[in-house]
């Protein structure tokens, strides 16, 4: 009766809602008040011969079941109606039966004969539903009947019944696992089914019953791949997950041998900038290694079946179903070559727009991915910015992703984001943000000090939680370099008076104890205060107080002996046994008595041992050993029934296995290509089957992404693909036939594929051969032109260094020659700065024709150093200021863009000319020098396919139409680096070849000099320091240094700084007028100023010299990263 009273209560509570089962029949509601009676009434209704009454009764019973009320006593009355004619009554009876059959096994048997009859019904839907209910009744006695029914249904004409059979398999398996072997036979049979309707369900059954029997898949692999796109969404998920596992056992790791792939991958490999940096380097290295290892290495060739899987799953990234997208994403993550994984990023980012639960799961997976493949998500950084409306768990995950994505280039934007987060009202989130800042600081050395400064600022925050969290993080950071930060430790020592959060107090005490040598005066005082409040502290704090006391006793026993003993005595009588134990242990260890053994000698070593700094790691590290997207991955623990993702086969997969598979699949395909069978399949085929006709179009679509397979997709027969494409939309027999034909073509082709060594292999091999040829050629050429090029090199190097007068003249001559040669092909160019013009004109007169194109000027790289200084001397005369005010006074450094050997005779060097780039002031001018040392002419030199980080722009240099053998040409391009040191990547194209090159600027080239007086300089510096940013102190970076012995005079310092960065000296002459206290002449201060090219942020550099070559370098810049990098560069320049 308790149930009934509960029911009545509930009814009372929700009276406005109304009890659903009374909704149709208000009369029946109030009459029966007790459970018993009501059931009686229900029985009566069920026994009546009116369908409407039966229906009413069943509805009420179902409503009871839905609410979790027990209705099992009605079983006999209900089961009688299983043969009822009324469909709805029947359905509801089924619902009841499935729910209670397990409890009333004997009675349930009464219904079986009805279902058995149903299994023979001519209507496929009735057959299917009979099988469905029969298999859902969990009664062990009927296992043989179920087995028989399933076997029969598995060979039913109707695919729908076969699907139901597939569904029934796991039901029977869970009821009686002993049937496994027989069920596997059925699964094997159904796996061979060619309809999309069955595919998903049977793979599901496979996964539940025999996931280890991966061998069953061999024969059906290609069919599953091809059907995939037409399978319903849920089936797709299951199939993709299963195929991921399959592929892991059957194919080679595509990333084993990345260099070749990257060469093969051609156009798309450089999809994301940052990846590219690595790649480029790798490529360089590997190219060298390649020459040596060429003969040895067996190139990786992707199995065509592997490719098939990747190609056929890719369109599913566009699915509306998040689970499908995730399944494809994990498949790509686990199986695709590194260069192709990038495609999933966009789709995953799209899922972030979905429900928060979806976001939660996707972000967890993205977090794992970002650790392995950061470059993939970098372009979508902003999609992970946190919104105040996000739930906390999403915020924390986004924070995790942002932290994983942080690197030198984006850290300043990320930190700025973090600053805003710190002010959030969500305190858990603020704490997480502070930890994230800590992790950024440990991972990226350049911003460590900045972050630390910022965190120290937070110590004065009013929110205690914020302060506490900061303390904990600062503690970790300080552990990395404690000697530099004793003032921070002091500051934190003061906090003990106010801060109450135990963890923070404990952290402070630990810090003081650990580094008590750095704060010898404060530490004992802290201990004194703590001893006073000892009894009121939390346990964790007490332990640290004891620790602190012990450490102080060991280092400074004179002052702290009594205090330590006092603390230990207090601890001795503490309520917590841990604390009592600790006190006893420590007393024995540190206070020497006759009993204390040898150990106390080592007490100091024990307590004050150097402790390694904690490594702040992402909790998502190494999670990728779980299959992404799985429940186990999400929980980071193996869930029941989780199938491990196997490791790639070590060596090349056993060729015999591959052969077997090929052999097996050949008959499969030949079978299919016989016409009748195809027709039969056609009938069952859902509508225009994309998947069938697809091989053509997909392949061609794919050829973009996979240049290796280019030859395959290019092979004429595919042309028909696009033709039939349009016909596809029209329905009817015609198109079907057409499709068939096409398919057959496809089949034939496939057969060919199988007979011949796979085309992909061919193409790759051929491309490799080409490479080899090229290499051979270049070698020959090299030996031919060895002497010549050597000369070239020499002279070039001389030209850049040239110190002697005669080499200069030599160059002069050479230059004349070169410019003379250069004139016809390259459009001559003009230069701009007034000063430069003046200087140049001295030389120009005989060397340069006045340039017709107003484009840009290459600075004359051949200007020898001495010449420059000479010219400086000239300009001195008209400048009152010190010579150093002229900015680009030093040698321009040449960088290599394309080496002669890689470029097959074409070599390209570039330098940052430090000239304003006239077409766009926000661009950095890069002057390139092309030298053709090959024996043939190079035509149509131009650039293509520029790949840039977002925001960056490039102004291409004008095409050089002809560069004859042995000639040299110059061109200037402009690049807007967006104030980052990200490389600009592009292809340098000649009429025959394309070369991937990249230009990465040193940070010093991202600025242009500006003229400031000393007063202005100081004002600007003030302004920067008082900026409104939350994390103050981020704008200034100071370093102490010792100047190099050769670099202690004014000239040397100025020159080295201006070489390292494109800055102009702030005249010190004005100093005297403005500030009365003239600095002592032997310790001058040098100031330099500039602005970044893109955002015009001020860059202020101060070098203050002190005694004996000591100096202090201060850089002020709003752009934190630029500042830190600049400090590094200048430091290097001044100390070497």
């Amino acid at each position, binding site marked *: 009766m308790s149930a009934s009273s509960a029911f009545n209560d509930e009814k009372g509570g*929700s009276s*406005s*809602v109304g*009890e*659903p089962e009374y*909704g*149709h*029949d208000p009369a029946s509601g109030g009459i029966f008040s007790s459970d018993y009676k009501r059931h009686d009434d229900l029985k009566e209704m069920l026994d009546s011969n*009116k369908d409407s009454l039966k229906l009413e009764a069943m*509805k009420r019973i179902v*409503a009871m079941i*839905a609410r979790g009320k027990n209705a099992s006593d009605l079983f006999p009355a209900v089961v009688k109606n299983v043969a009822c004619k*009324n*469909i*709805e009554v029947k*359905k*509801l009876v089924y*619902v009841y039966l499935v729910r209670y059959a397990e409890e009333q096994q004997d009675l349930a048997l009464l219904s079986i004969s009805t279902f058995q009859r149903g299994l023979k019904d001519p209507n496929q*839907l*009735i057959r299917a539903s009979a099988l469905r209910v029969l298999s*859902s009744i969990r009664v062990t006695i009927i296992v043989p009947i179920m087995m028989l029914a399933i076997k029969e249904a598995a060979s039913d004409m109707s695919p*729908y019944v076969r699907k*139901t059979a597939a*569904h029934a398999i*796991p*039901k029977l398996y869970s009821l009686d696992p002993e049937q496994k072997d027989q069920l596997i036979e059925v699964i094997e049979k159904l796996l061979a089914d060619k309809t999309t309707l069955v595919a998903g*369900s049977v793979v599901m059954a496979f996964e539940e019953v025999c996931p280890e029997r991966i061998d069953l898949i061999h024969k059906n692999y290609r069919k599953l791949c091809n059907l995939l796109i037409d399978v*319903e969404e*849920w089936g797709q998920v299951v199939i993709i997950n299963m195929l991921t596992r399959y592929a892991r056992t059957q194919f080679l790791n595509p990333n084993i041998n990345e260099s070749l792939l990257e060469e093969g991958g051609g156009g798309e490999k450089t999809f994301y900038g940052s990846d590219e940096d690595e790649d480029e380097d790798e490529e360089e290295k590997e190219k060298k290694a390649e020459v040596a290892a060429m003969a040895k290495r067996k190139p990786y060739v992707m199995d065509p079946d592997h490719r098939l899987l990747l190609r056929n799953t890719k369109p599913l990234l566009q699915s509306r179903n998040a689970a499908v997208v995730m*399944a494809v994403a994990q498949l790509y993550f686990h199986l695709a070559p590194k260069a192709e994984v990038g495609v999933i990023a966009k789709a995953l980012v*799209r899922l972030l727009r979905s*429900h928060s*639960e*979806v976001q*939660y799961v996707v972000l967890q997976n993205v977090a794992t991915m970002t650790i392995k493949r950061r470059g993939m998500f970098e372009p979508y950084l*902003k*999609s992970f*910015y946190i*919104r105040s*409306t996000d739930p906390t768990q999403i915020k924390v995950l986004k924070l995790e992703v942002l932290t994983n994505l942080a690197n030198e280039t984006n850290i300043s934007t990320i930190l700025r984001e973090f*600053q*805003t987060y710190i*002010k*959030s*009202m969500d305190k858990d989130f603020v704490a997480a943000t502070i930890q994230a800042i800590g992790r950024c600081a440990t991972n990226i050395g350049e911003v460590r000090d900045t972050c630390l400064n910022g965190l120290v600022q937070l110590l004065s925050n*009013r*929110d205690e939680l914020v302060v506490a969290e900061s303390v904990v993080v600062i503690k970790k950071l300080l552990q990395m370099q404690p000697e530099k930060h004793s003032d921070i430790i002091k500051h934190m020592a003061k906090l003990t008076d106010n801060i109450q959060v135990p963890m923070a107090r404990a952290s402070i005490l630990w810090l003081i104890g650990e580094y008590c040598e750095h704060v010898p005066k404060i530490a004992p005082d802290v201990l004194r205060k703590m001893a006073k409040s000892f009894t009121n502290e939390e346990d964790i704090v007490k332990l640290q107080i004891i620790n602190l006391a012990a450490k102080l006793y060991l280092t400074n026993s004179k002052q702290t002996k009594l205090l330590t003993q006092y603390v230990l005595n207090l601890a001795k009588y503490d309520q917590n046994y841990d604390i009592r134990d600790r006190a006893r242990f420590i007393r024995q260890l540190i206070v020497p008595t006759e009993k204390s053994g040898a150990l106390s000698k080592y007490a100091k070593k024990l307590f004050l041992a150097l402790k390694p700094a904690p490594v702040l790691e992402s909790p998502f590290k190494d999670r990728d050993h779980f299959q992404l997207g*799985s*429940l186990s991955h*999400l*929980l980071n623990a193996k869930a*029941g*029934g989780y*199938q491990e993702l196997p490791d790639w086969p070590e060596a090349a997969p056993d060729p015999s296995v591959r052969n077997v598979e090929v052999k097996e699949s050949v008959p499969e395909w030949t079978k299919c290509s016989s016409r009748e069978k195809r027709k039969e399949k056609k009938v069952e085929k859902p*509508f225009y089957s994309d998947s069938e006709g*697809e091989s053509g179009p997909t392949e061609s*679509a794919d050829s973009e992404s996979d240049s290796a397979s280019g030859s395959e997709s290019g092979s004429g027969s595919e042309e028909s693909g696009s033709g039939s494409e349009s016909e596809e*939309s*029209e329905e009817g027999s015609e198109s079907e036939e057409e499709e068939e034909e096409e398919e057959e073509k496809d089949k034939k082709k496939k057969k060919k594929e199988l007979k011949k060594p796979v085309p992909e292999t061919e193409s790759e091999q051929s491309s490799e051969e080409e490479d080899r040829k090229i290499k051979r050629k270049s070698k020959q050429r090299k030996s031919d032109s060895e002497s010549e090029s050597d000369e070239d090199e020499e002279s070039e190097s001389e030209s850049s260094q040239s110190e002697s007068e005669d080499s200069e003249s030599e160059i002069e001559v050479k230059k004349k020659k070169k410019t003379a040669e250069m004139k016809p092909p390259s459009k001559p160019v003009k230069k701009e700065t007034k000063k430069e013009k003046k200087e140049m004109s001295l030389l120009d007169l005989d060397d340069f024709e006045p340039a017709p194109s107003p484009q840009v000027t290459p600075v004359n790289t051949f200007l020898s150093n001495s010449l420059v200084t000479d010219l400086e001397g000239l300009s001195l005369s008209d400048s009152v200021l010190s010579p150093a005010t002229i900015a680009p006074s030093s040698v321009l450094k040449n960088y290599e863009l394309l080496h002669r050997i890689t470029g097959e005779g074409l070599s390209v060097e570039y330098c940052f000319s430090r000239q304003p780039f006239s077409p766009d002031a926000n661009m950095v001018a890069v002057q390139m020098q092309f030298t053709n040392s090959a024996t043939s002419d190079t035509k149509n030199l131009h650039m293509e396919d520029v790949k840039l980080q977002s925001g960056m722009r490039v102004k291409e240099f004008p095409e050089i139409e002809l560069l004859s053998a042995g000639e040299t040409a110059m061109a200037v391009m402009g690049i807007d680096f967006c104030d980052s040191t990200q490389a600009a990547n592009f292809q340098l194209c000649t009429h025959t070849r394309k070369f991937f090159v990249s230009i990465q600027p040193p940070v010093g080239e991202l600025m242009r000099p500006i003229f400031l007086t000393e007063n202005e300089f100081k004002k600007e510096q003030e302004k920067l320091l008082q900026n*409104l940013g939350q994390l103050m102190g981020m704008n200034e970076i100071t370093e102490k240094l010792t100047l190099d012995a050769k670099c202690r005079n004014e000239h040397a310092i100025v020159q080295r700084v201006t070489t390292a960065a494109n800055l102009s000296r702030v005249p010190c002459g004005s100093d005297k007028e403005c500030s009365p206290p003239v600095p002592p002449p032997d310790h001058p201060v040098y100031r330099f100023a500039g602005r970044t090219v893109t955002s015009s942020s001020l860059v202020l550099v101060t070098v203050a010299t002190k005694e004996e070559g000591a100096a202090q370098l201060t850089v002020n810049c709003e752009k934190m990263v630029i500042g830190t990098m600049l400090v590094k560069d200048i430091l290097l320049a001044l100390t070497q």
Partner: protein
Amino acid sequence: MIHSLFLVNASGDIFLEKHWKSVVSRSVCDYFFEAQERATEPENVPPVIPTPHHYLISVLRHRIYFVAVIQSEVPPLFVIEFLHRVVDTFQDYFGVCTEAAIKDNVVVVYELLEEMLDNGFPLATESNILKELIKPPTILRTMVNTITGSTNVGEQLPTGQLSVVPWRRTGVKYTNNEAYFDVVEEIDAIIDKSGSTITAEIQGVIDACVKLTGMPDLTLSFMNPRLLDDVSFHPCVRFKRWEAERILSFIPPDGNFRLLSYHVSSQNLVAIPVYVKHNITFREGSSQGRFDLTLGPKQTMGKAVESVLVSSQLPRGVLNANLNPSQGTYTFDPVTKLLSWDVGKINPQKLPSLKGTMSLQAGASKPDENPTINIQFKIQQMAISGLKVNRLDMYGEKYKPFKGIKYMTKAGKFQRCVWIAGSDRYYTNRASLIIVTS
């Protein structure tokens, strides 16, 4: 896969349970309630909760938790996506998906759940097939059923599951053949305190309502398909055709469905349609703060900004707000500190503003955190990305359908950083501005 499903309402009562395999005791939900208690906000309950023998995967929709019980490894998104599909189906059937609606239609709900899952594996989730199996309740049908005793369940055997076009039933007939498409775009943006955009992107969907006889085959083409950066389709869209020609070619489902959702590439600059001017100050030592907020339209191509709703989470220290709106009405909840201002339509000639004072707790120090501002609004007849449908063609049927296309701009997550100016310090924080149109 999915073992059982429990529906839990906001007050923590289980009001519906359904089991697909053997029965799992409802006490398993205790783990869920524990997690619910731990979470401060309803949406902070972790979607996946491990228990000793089961895993609970839940979604929260319409203040109802749908808690699925899982026994072994399954992709969590699979379950989550399915649960959302269940909710969508309920919404489709009952108009709303509330506790009351579910309780009222408990039998239909049960029948639906029975059809959607078989042994825990999704069976029929297409609304077209489901509607053939189980007729959605309408007032008329309910009345007829009551009188005549007929049923909700389809009389004849459904054929949808056997159809070659699984999302469309055969034999559809309409007297008026119509196809309507709604292009709805949402702007997501974060704008920093100085008013410059940190990030802005446009997400859009094309929702369709197609009521066409027979088996029509439609193609929809755009004037500027290159705008679409990332797309996801209803399964009916032929992917190959899109890849090759940027044309949407499909046999539509019958009735309402989402044809396409897309993302407009971030390279295109997003024109932000509204601006906010704000001046919020607290003076140290005084218990008064000033609040001043003005809205204005910006780049709306002459279209009116309607249904503007501003809401803001004021700092906890604020006791009350005494404000004066130039139009519309505002409310301030002193408990949750939520300020909301129903602005209505923005008149460009007379910009709406909300000015006044806030009172702080006496003696309390100036609030540390900043208020957040949410704004919702609608703009009709404009797709902010500039996406334009070129034409809609129908093949396969003889009649001439009536076609209609509607554009809308709707802002999703739109945030703006706000400065609170104090007497001595500036605070920066992020507030959010949510713009919605329909």
